[in-house]
């Protein structure tokens, strides 16, 4: 295979995986901690992209990067307090029905406010342009020259390869978000409480911990990550009311393949799915089924998913 084409496909796989990872991360975090199946997670992404495109068009993009995740955090907390906490002990089917209904309401609401057509999402100047990957170290300019995006050295390609800079930004943001969330859950007191709350929420209450409040923050965090996905993914995925639902299904499969509630599982499954989509792109019919094929194979071999923990939602 041509090394340049291979490199481009790897990048595309990573970029697709990055979007799925950001959506799946929120889903798996909420499912893992609360046992709650949130089919409205795609709708949170839709709110985020419309919020991002509106803020970016009227003020500037940097403000959107700060405001949209904060707004989504608040929406997530309100969503948990107002709706989903009443459904924790209800069957998953009830949870799916109520959140699916909510997703449709949000979709229609966005259609009503912004119309059904794609709204162009203009990239900020610093994020547009092409990134150039050179095979020759000495060819990499110290100062970006080609449309002002930075350049990188990649030893195994031939000559040079260009790739949209924003897509690389998305990959980087996704990795930083995953690492940040992992660190929050693994190395902080809050994370310890949340991880323990996943296992035995009642015992935590007996230890004086208001776990319901922590769970509201968890849903807020999941929504804020959808906010981050919206700001950085919106320019790539399109800005239409239907995009949330289109992303939800593969993202949900990513969660299932990775193992319900497993963050590292979601990340690895997202990259796996992204790569599979990228490498099957040339075979038109295969791309539609490849995600499901992977899900079937993984679940047949490991019903708990790649990194699903024993005892968590079995």
């Amino acid at each position, binding site marked *: 295979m041509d090394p340049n084409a291979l490199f481009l496909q790897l990048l595309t796989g990573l970029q697709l995986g990055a979007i799925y990872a950001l959506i799946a991360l929120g889903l798996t975090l909420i499912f893992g901690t609360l046992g709650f199946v949130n089919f409205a997670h795609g709708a949170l992404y839709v709110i985020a992209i419309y919020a991002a495109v509106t803020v970016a068009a009227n003020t500037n993009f940097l403000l959107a990067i700060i405001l949209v995740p904060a707004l989504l955090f608040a929406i997530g907390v309100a969503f948990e307090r107002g709706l989903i906490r009443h459904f924790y002990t209800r069957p998953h089917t009830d949870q799916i029905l109520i959140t699916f209904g909510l997703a449709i309401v949000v979709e229609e609401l966005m259609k009503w406010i912004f119309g059904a057509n794609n709204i162009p999402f203009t990239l900020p100047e610093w994020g547009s342009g092409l990134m150039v990957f050179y095979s020759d170290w000495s060819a990499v300019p110290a100062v970006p020259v080609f449309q002002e995006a930075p350049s990188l050295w990649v030893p195994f390609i031939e000559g040079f390869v260009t790739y949209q800079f924003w897509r690389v930004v998305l990959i980087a943001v996704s990795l930083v978000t995953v690492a940040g969330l992992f660190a929050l859950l693994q190395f902080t*007191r809050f994370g*310890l*409480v949340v*991880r*323990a709350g996943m*296992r*035995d929420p*009642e*015992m*935590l*209450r*007996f*230890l*004086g*911990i*208001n*776990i319901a409040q922590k769970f509201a923050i968890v849903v807020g965090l999941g929504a804020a990550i959808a906010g981050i996905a919206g700001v950085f993914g919106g320019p790539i995925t399109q800005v239409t009311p239907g995009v949330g639902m289109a992303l939800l299904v593969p993202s949900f499969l990513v969660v299932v393949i990775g193992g319900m509630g497993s963050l590292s599982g979601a990340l690895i499954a997202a990259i796996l799915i992204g790569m599979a989509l990228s490498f099957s792109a040339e075979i038109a019919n295969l791309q539609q089924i490849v995600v499901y094929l992977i899900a079937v194979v993984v679940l047949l071999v490991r019903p708990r998913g790649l990194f699903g*923990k024993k*005892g968590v939602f079995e």
Partner: protein
Amino acid sequence: MAMADAMERPEATRTGGRPFFSCRNVESYYGESYIVQGVSFDIAENEIVALLGRNGAGKTSTLRTLARAQEPHLTAGEIWLDGQALHSMKAYQAARAGVQLVPEDRRIIPGITVEENLILAQTVEPRGWEIAQIYELFPRLGERKRQEANTLSGGEQQMLAIARALARQIKLLLLDEPYEGLAPTIVEEIEKTMEVIRRSGITTIIVEQNALAALRIADSAVILDMGEVVFRGTAQQVLDSEDLREQYLAV
């Protein structure tokens, strides 16, 4: 009247003649099932009470109701601890008010270490023993502090469950079956722990299938039958009365 009471039984009083702990006509349900059927009793500060009864008498349900668990849910009655109305609190608020339940299945949190289980208990005020102090009392927990808590033996898990409660400031300790399923040598160790609890003057309700073991450390006893209190007296009275033991305890 309250003052006179206080003078006659100073150990049983704390605030304005009220007992340190009291529950009055407490009723609770598991779903539709009427489990705790109007239970009332008082406890003095520093008193250790054995809550006894046959299987299914409602002992565990009573403890869970007092700890304000969601299930069984309290439908009627009042629960007072040191002037605080537990009946209008949720479980986490009752815990902050000083109630500590050590559940019958120990409920050690899996997937995290021994020390992390203790840290969890110290997440919110008011805290009790320092973790270093806990390791002094339970050196075995200190040795295994980095070990995943669910890999401990049954006895060690019971120690951790009690230690976790001690890591919080306790006004009322609720011990549910501390000896259940433990080898005799471990029972001895837990008994030593119980002695420490006794010496620290922690007001305690202990539920134990092994009534004699519970009565050995208790000052007094409450016997439940069919969700109701059928006896309230000293531990010695139960030990002395064959009738009581035969009728309600089968020992």
